[in-house]
């Protein structure tokens, strides 16, 4: 398999989240993190989750990945219930979660090594490609603690993209990046995703980013975490984040966001 073929990869998966609820119980309090959340994500669809801090977005990703089990409801991937995490549903965490015992290349190679059907040479080639994509080829042998915050996030991004999973769950992957690097990555990544489509669930606080990337933006509210509203974005791709249409859509969503949660920030 050449790098070219590898870029096409396996087909994306269909995800169904059915009536999922989740409570976190500690001795002090019980947090109702998710309340009856249902989602239907088609094959190759790109879904963005947007919502106030602490509304359960990360928790939902954990549940979809299989890392956490919901207290109620189920998650189905390709009509199979999700019971365990696996390499077909890869998570890019909110914290960079890089392995300090590996260098940058080692971190990016980690998931690749678990992917069958590749020679080690191909793996190295793919790793190099993605390290270059995130602009870190000069730091390919650096230790994790020597990287700046944004660099760590880019390594985590490369690590998540490299194994080309069928489902990608990304938790604020661009939060620590400057606008420029971000825009560069939007276009690079859109290009790649057009070639090898996958199902993506993406958490962000940047509504423009959501509109630029997603087929569907889902708005969460908090206490308990619930789906408030859903926006289908039917703009042609590739999209330019600075375009007027995009700004219109994002304005609409921002208004919805503010309308819903107006009282929440001050009262919580």
């Amino acid at each position, binding site marked *: 398999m050449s790098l070219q073929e590898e870029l096409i990869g396996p087909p994306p998966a269909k995800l169904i989240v059915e009536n999922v609820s989740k409570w976190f119980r500690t001795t002090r309090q019980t947090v109702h993190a998710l309340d009856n959340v249902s989602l239907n994500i088609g094959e190759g669809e790109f879904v963005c989750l947007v919502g106030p801090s602490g509304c359960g977005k990360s928790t939902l990703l954990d549940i979809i*990945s*299989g*890392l956490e089990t919901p207290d109620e409801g189920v998650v189905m991937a390709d009509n199979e219930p999700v019971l*365990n*995490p*696996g*390499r*077909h*549903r*890869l*998570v890019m*965490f909110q*914290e960079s*979660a890089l*392995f*300090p*015992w*590996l260098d940058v290349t080692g971190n990016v190679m*980690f*998931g690749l090594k*678990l*992917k069958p059907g590749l020679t080690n040479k191909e793996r190295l080639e793919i790793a190099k490609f993605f390290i270059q994509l995130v602009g870190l080829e000069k730091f390919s042998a650096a*230790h*994790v*603690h*020597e990287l700046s915050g944004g660099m760590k996030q880019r390594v985590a991004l490369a*690590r998540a993209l490299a*194994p080309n999973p069928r489902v990608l*769950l990304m938790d604020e992957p661009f939060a620590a990046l400057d606008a420029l690097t971000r825009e560069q990555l939007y276009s690079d990544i859109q290009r790649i995703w057009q070639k090898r489509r996958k199902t993506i669930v993406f958490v962000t606080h940047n509504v423009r980013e959501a509109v630029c990337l997603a087929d569907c933006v889902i708005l969460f509210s908090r206490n308990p975490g619930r789906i408030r509203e859903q926006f289908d974005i039917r703009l042609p791709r590739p999209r330019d984040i600075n375009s007027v249409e995009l700004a219109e859509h994002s304005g609409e969503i921002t208004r919805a966001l503010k309308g819903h949660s107006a009282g929440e920030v001050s009262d919580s």
Partner: protein
Amino acid sequence: MKRTLLATIFFLVLLVIWSVIVQAKIWSPILLPSPQSVGEYLLGAARDGTLLQATGVTVRRLVVGYLIGIAIGLPLGLLTSAWKFVEDTIGVLALGLQTLPSVCWIPLALLWFGQTESAMLFVVVMGTVWSVVIATDTGVRNIPPIFARAARTMGSSGLHKWTKVILPASLPYLVSGMKQGWAFAWRSLMAAEIYVTILTGFGLGHLLHYGRELHAMDQVIGVMLVIVLIGLLTDKILFAPIERFLHQRWGTGLR
């Protein structure tokens, strides 16, 4: 440079204090020999080969016993941290047995192996393995869970997860556990050499024991110095580089 100098001065001062106490004759010279007589013993024993041979014998036993202890203890520790059933059985055994003094194992060792090298190794291994089990178990339990979570979503599970994630993630703990295991191995071996006399090798423990039996305190203190020296060398040669490596990788160890 300055560090070495200061440390050298410190140890010289210790030596001088020792000399002064001996000179003052507060305690019988049989119980507290002078630095000179200890030096003479060491020189003599080094020259006639006793010391070198005993050190060789002891270090060989130590290394073999320690490696066996780790080879058994490390996987067991991983198992106890992974499975509740193993935790409730082997883990509980390890907690209880690690406090047992080495002397408890000697009757069993003799019963099973007779007066052989194996008996001695058995005592060393029993003195080491439980503490390695516990150190490994504790190390694994203290890993930040994000590492295992990240690995699992990338498809790592089973053996791969344990060898490529859990083990390296707990390395800082494991090394500290291994250092203590090394001390346990030494102490157990000394007990074993004192209690299990065999003819296949005369080690430092025997030298120490017979030195005490024959009131040759210069020999006792000489052998103690050799043990201390070996302890230091092991640290400098074996553990310190590993720790330095880990600190570099993890970005820790700075103040």
